[in-house]
């Protein structure tokens, strides 16, 4: 209804202005202005870094085979017409081959027709280019082979059975479908070099077409009138490079319709006139502080009195988890927008077990007991936690500092805030030279992604942090996680997840301060505002937003 109204309204307005007024004003068709947090570094699905600003744009201009709707985290057909499952036979018995029937009669924004060749091309391209920093492993580590069955049927074979393939790979922005014709027309690609066309251009099938990008200023996306699905309502302009508080000011002033912001700001916007606040559900990016048990000899920063293997002692890891003031973090820093969920299967992810034991109550007595037992209470210690300065993560570190030092002034935590680049460099290398560091997890729809990355003894961080020598019983955990990876029966799988949760409570490798709430603030003339944590940050789908105001 509102949609119809606003469309017809816009039509007449457009006609009138085109007929009589300045071009400048004619351009003033409804445009949603969004104050963005991070400007894309690249717009190329094969180059974009997971979690990086480019994803939020790729999300709108390209389609993937599947997507998730606004309402639930259930998969929804997109360029594919059906969701593969063992039941409907689109997943082979051995669980290795997936078949995707594709939509017909769709064209890319450059009018070239969409076929299975484009899908194959897009995926193969990502795997072939292996662009540094990109998420190519998402596909390359899983996909054994891609095949075009016919113009409108695409088939992929995996290396191993992978229960999270659809969520972890197919949904990822890296797996977006680009126009083969356009890319090939722009010149050859290969050995780690793209032809650059897609770095600052987007030719997709999505609800928005790419209009213009003035670096460090703004980017304009136009409604794609011939979209195969429900067409978007309003054009979008993303404004880049604003400080968080300036974005908030802009929203109050009505300069922006939507902004990317975090809980601490949203709290201030409550009651501001013309501003609505959306706060439902949680982001799937737990805020964590990692323990590193694999610090090279003598690599710890100046002033650290702890031994390199300080955190090998499970009691100390537990003590830290007990000591952390969770309430302060959620109530103080996140202003109540968030959940205390201190372990690595976030709420809203398949298999999350609400009954599994968690930390989440500050328990200084227990913490002191454990510290004394571990024999570090009396002489105390100084440990440094490295973090990106000026970030929410830094505040988490400050709370840890306050919590520990309040117990016993001899136990000191240094919060070392460093520039983003320095932090990334420190964390990117094979071995990390700090005993602790803080950041947040990468979002995923399936528990296995988290468990492999953050819990498995031989997983990404397991190797770097040396989980294997630190876990009381590494093999038990490893086996459980491996099972979860391949178990296709949902209930059994859920059970296994719950089991591993309890193990990880007894033997924590992270302090997880909280699960940040999915919150944003927007002008009240924007309708249908929904945040879907599974959509790339800021988790907004402009295509379903409707700006009714004049």
């Amino acid at each position, binding site marked *: 209804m509102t949609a119809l109204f606003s469309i017809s309204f816009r039509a007449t307005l457009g006609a009138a202005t085109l007929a009589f007024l300045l071009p400048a004003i004619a351009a003033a068709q409804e445009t949603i202005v969004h104050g963005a947090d991070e400007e894309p570094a690249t717009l190329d699905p094969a180059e974009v870094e997971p979690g990086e600003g480019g994803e939020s744009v790729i999300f709108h201009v390209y389609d993937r085979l599947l997507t998730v709707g606004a309402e639930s985290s259930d998969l929804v057909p997109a360029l594919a017409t059906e969701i593969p499952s063992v039941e409907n036979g689109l997943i082979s018995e051995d669980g290795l081959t997936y078949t995707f029937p594709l939509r017909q009669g769709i064209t890319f924004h450059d009018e070239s027709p969409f076929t299975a060749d484009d899908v194959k091309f897009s995926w193969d391209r990502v795997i072939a280019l292996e662009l540094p920093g990109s998420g190519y492993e998402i596909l390359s580590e899983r996909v054994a082979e891609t095949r075009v069955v016919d113009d409108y049927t695409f088939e992929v074979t995996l290396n191993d059975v992978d229960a999270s393939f659809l969520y972890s790979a197919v949904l990822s922005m890296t797996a977006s479908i680009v126009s083969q014709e356009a890319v090939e027309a722009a010149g050859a690609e290969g050995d780690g070099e793209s032809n650059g066309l897609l770095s600052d251009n987007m030719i997709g099938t999505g609800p928005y077409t790419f209009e213009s990008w003035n670096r460090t200023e703004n980017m304009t996306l136009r409604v794609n009138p011939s979209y195969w699905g429900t067409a978007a309502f309003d054009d979008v302009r993303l404004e880049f490079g604003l400080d968080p508080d300036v974005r908030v000011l802009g929203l109050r002033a009505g300069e922006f319709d939507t902004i990317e912001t975090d809980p601490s700001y949203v709290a201030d916007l409550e009651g501001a006139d013309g501003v609505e606040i959306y706060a439902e559900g949680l982001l799937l990016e737990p805020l964590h502080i990692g323990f590193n048990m694999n610090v090279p000899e003598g690599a710890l920063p100046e002033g650290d009195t702890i031994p390199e293997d300080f955190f090998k002692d499970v009691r100390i890891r537990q003590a830290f988890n007990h000591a952390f003031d969770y309430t302060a973090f959620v109530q103080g820093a996140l202003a109540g927008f968030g959940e205390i969920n201190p372990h690595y299967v976030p709420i809203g992810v398949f298999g999350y077990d609400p009954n599994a034991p968690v930390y989440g109550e500050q328990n200084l007595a227990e913490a002191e007991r454990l510290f004394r037992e571990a024999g570090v209470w009396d002489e105390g210690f100084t440990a440094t936690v490295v973090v990106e300065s000026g970030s929410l993560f830094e*505040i988490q570190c400050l709370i840890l500092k306050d919590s520990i030092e309040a117990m016993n002034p001899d136990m000191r935590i240094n919060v070392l805030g460093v520039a983003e680049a320095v932090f990334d460099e420190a964390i990117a290398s094979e071995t990390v030279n700090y005993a602790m560091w803080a950041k947040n997890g990468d979002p995923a729809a399936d528990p296995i992604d988290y468990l492999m990355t953050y819990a498995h003894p031989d997983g990404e961080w397991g190797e770097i942090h040396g989980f294997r020598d630190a876990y009381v019983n590494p093999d038990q955990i490893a086996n459980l996680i491996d099972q979860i990876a391949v178990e296709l029966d949902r209930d059994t799988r859920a059970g296994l997840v719950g089991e591993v949760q309890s193990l990880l409570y007894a033997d924590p490798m992270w302090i997880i301060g909280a699960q940040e709430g999915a919150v944003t603030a927007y002008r009240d003339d924007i309708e249908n505002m929904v945040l879907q944590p599974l959509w790339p940050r800021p988790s907004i789908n402009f295509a379903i937003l409707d700006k009714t105001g004049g």
Partner: protein
Amino acid sequence: MAISDNAIPMSARQVRLRRWTEIFRSLMTNPTTALGMIIIFLLLAMAIFAPWLSTPNTPDAYQMPRDWGATRMPPGTPNHPLGTTNQGGDVLYGVIWGSRTSLQMSLIVVSVTVVIGVAIGSIAGIVGGWIDETLMRIVDIFLSIPELIFALAVAAILGPSFTNIILSLCIVFWVKYARIMRAQIILIRQADYVQAARVMGDSRLNIFLRDILPNASTPIAVQATLDMGNIVLVGATLSFIGLSESGIAEWGVLVSEGQAGIASGRWWASTFPGLMIFLWALAFNLVGDGLRDALDPRTEGR
């Protein structure tokens, strides 16, 4: 008058005495300078008596005390007279202990840079020759990079921390003093009494210590006074851009952290510290300006 025409050359001590008394007189007579001095006096008092004005935070007094139960409190809330920050930091505490931080910063930087500058300037001026040449070229290089930008670059490379800010300021600010010192030496060398002293066979060191150093002190004093203000200003700017550590009681940090609130009408968290930076810089600039005028023959009345 006729008398001054055939005056006999004055001794170094006389010269000095006369200069300082002149300076002092004109400082006292100039209302703006007097204002500056009053503000400085108050700020210093605040810094010195900080522990009595608000009880130091344990274990580290230069860390903001964070009351996570009382974040974003407006001014006038019990035991937070100036309100609190987003992290429940007491703004008043920040303002008071910030004066100490600033005093530390400016004192350390000024004393370090003066020592370095004077040393290098003296070597260049006294030894002369190729050493002088090279040193002065280096000085030229440093002088051709605008202060703030240079400090910014250095601090960025050292990584964000309060100590690094101080370090970068030290690296940047010594140059002027070297310049001044050298110029003074070359200037004063020619003065009658120094010539006289040389004739009387004083050792170079003696002349330097007794005649040159004290006379060079006035222009250096001016520069130092001005820098006392500038340094806090530049330092605060660096912190604002994000090169300091959050959580410490430093005005620049507080302003940048307080920004978050301004958007939502929580003006106090950044306004008070910002005001302090302003007052600090203003006071020292006023006094420095006054000093300079007192020393600058051109602006002296006839």
